[in-house]
């Protein structure tokens, strides 16, 4: 595969620029996009870089089209991606639903903005429910929630591989801060880190002569009978569940003896990490747990952490009004640990906010 970066090198750039470079390095062929803040610069950088590396871009008429053209391109066997936010993410739930139904390896970068509706163009964690369980389906998707630009780079590369290996639509869930901030990171070509890039392959327009070597491909997402659909959904569910243990990722620190475990995801986890360090220095037994995959959720791992620590409290901190909390509650149903919350919808959370909340609980 073509080397883009050469020797691994340090960079200082915005998250959106990071996405564009990571897509190049991962071997993405084409991006379909539609302007919406705060993801615009993904397109800005991609349109500048793509022609130099013989890659393609199409600015579509809306996000429905960006999603469906991406679906078409992956069916044709190309590594295609899109990026969106907020109301654009809402519109894209329709093509994402098709990607779920037809097992299309679509990679989407979501840079969360404030909601509902137009909300703000700045930041939030309010697209968790939409990105994990949006659409008229069962949430058969893989969602990585990144916290740093290094992770944005790493997980965009990994996201393409996950999508093409397992053929479930895959998401890198960032936010306006991660999109617009500048931060240091190391860029690299995946092969230099021993990462094997999974090659795309077509689902239609495949080799072999129809009628002689093979049957025609007839892809569909609609069924005449209830039972036919039932079979498909049950089969896909079973497959999703069987691969979930290989996909699940999380971080846990200082949980072994914790009285209170702070759970957060994405950029908020950086504040939680700092808060735990400060609280520990003050003699408060705080722990840190962060799901990196929101779908599938590290359910078993979180249950084990709760059980092993014997913690009295979980504190769920998020820049939304309970979207992460609902995910956690459904995953750890039956646990008796007390759940406290710090909901700051649409605004950033810093270590001080979490420390103050912890001290009001303990």
């Amino acid at each position, binding site marked *: 595969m073509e080397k883009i970066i050469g020797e691994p090198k340090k960079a200082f750039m915005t998250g959106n620029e990071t996405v564009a470079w990571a897509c190049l390095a991962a071997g993405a*062929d*084409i991006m*379909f996009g539609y302007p919406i803040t705060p993801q615009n610069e993904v397109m800005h950088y991609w349109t500048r870089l793509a022609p130099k590396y013989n890659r*393609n871009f*199409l600015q*579509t*008429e*809306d996000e*429905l*089209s960006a*999603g*469906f*053209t*991406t*679906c*078409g*391109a992956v*069916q*044709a*066997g*190309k590594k*295609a991606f899109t990026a969106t936010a907020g109301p654009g993410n809402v519109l894209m739930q*329709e*093509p994402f639903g*098709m990607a779920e139904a*037809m097992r299309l390896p679509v990679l989407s970068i979501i840079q969360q903005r404030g909601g509902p509706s137009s909300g703000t163009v700045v930041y939030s964690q309010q697209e968790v429910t939409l990105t994990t369980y949006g659409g008229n389906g069962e949430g058969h998707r893989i969602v990585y929630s990144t916290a740093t630009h290094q992770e944005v780079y790493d997980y965009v590369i990994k996201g393409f591989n996950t999508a093409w290996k397992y053929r479930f639509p895959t998401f890198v869930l960032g936010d306006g801060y991660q999109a617009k901030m500048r931060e240091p990171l190391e860029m690299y070509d995946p092969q230099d880190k021993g990462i094997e890039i999974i090659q795309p392959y*077509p*689902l*239609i*327009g*495949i080799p072999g*002569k*129809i*009628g002689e070597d093979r049957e*025609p*491909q*007839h*892809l*569909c*997402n*609609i069924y005449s009978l209830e039972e036919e659909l039932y079979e498909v959904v049950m089969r896909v569910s079973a497959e999703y569940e069987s691969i979930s243990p290989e996909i699940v990722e999380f971080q846990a620190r200082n949980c072994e003896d914790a009285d209170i475990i702070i759970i957060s995801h994405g950029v908020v986890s950086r504040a939680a990490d700092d808060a735990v360090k400060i609280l520990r220095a003050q003699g408060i037994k705080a722990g840190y747990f962060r799901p990196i995959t929101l779908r599938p959720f590290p359910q078993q791992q979180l249950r084990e952490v709760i059980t092993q620590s014997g913690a009295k409290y979980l504190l769920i901190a998020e820049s939304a009004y309970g979207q992460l909390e609902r995910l956690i509650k459904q995953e750890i149903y039956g646990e008796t640990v007390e759940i406290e919350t710090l909901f700051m919808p649409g605004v950033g959370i810093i270590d001080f906010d979490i420390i103050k909340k912890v001290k009001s609980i303990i």
Partner: protein
Amino acid sequence: MEMLAPATPKSWYLPTKPHKFCPGCGHGITLKALGEAIDELGIQQETIFGCDIGCSLLAWNFFACDSTQTHHGRTTPVMVGIKRARPELITIGYMGDGGGYSIGSQHLLNSAVRNEKVTLILVNNTNYGMTGGQMAPTTLPGQITETSPYGRDPETTGYPTRGPEFIAELTPEGAYVARATVSKYKQLKRLIRNAIRNQMEGNGFSFVEVLSTCPTNWRTNANQTWNFLEEKMEQYFPVGEIKSPLGKGDK
């Protein structure tokens, strides 16, 4: 007495025949013309057929061509995505008037403006057939449907969309735009073939609207069905090539 089997196009997928369209429906005629056009152009192996939701979706496994079925109105962007990714493939999108002119109109309009190198065939039967006969953008003034039970009133619901006419205005030279009817088979096949040839030659966006019949929802007998098509529809929607970069005299 021995039954004489009608000739079927080579590009049809025989295990799914007879097809599932209602008796008297024009889809079968349109898809026969499309199948014969694919055969004559010798493109069965490189054709990607895509269909919409609505009655057109019943064509999802109609051809012995690689095929994909999409959502209502979204066949256009899926075909565009395939063509942009693999320009060597010949992409043929198939949809109804609701999918093309209503729920997917932004895709049709903008792909026409961008002169996307795809071929789209839109079947106009003046109503939403699959969902039970509601008013469509193409429903004629005064026509009774389930959502215009007293007849379509242009004062409150506007006049029928003349798709090829607006697409011709939007597209640059190189685009192919035509309207055919299932009542004139030879012309129907020729216009469809031209619309595919135009994509093969890389000239531009290629669009054919096909006037079609829906006796099930029109609640018409054979005579009434054909009269409505030939007298009413063909009067409001003029048939023929509107725009063609292909040489004259092509038969």
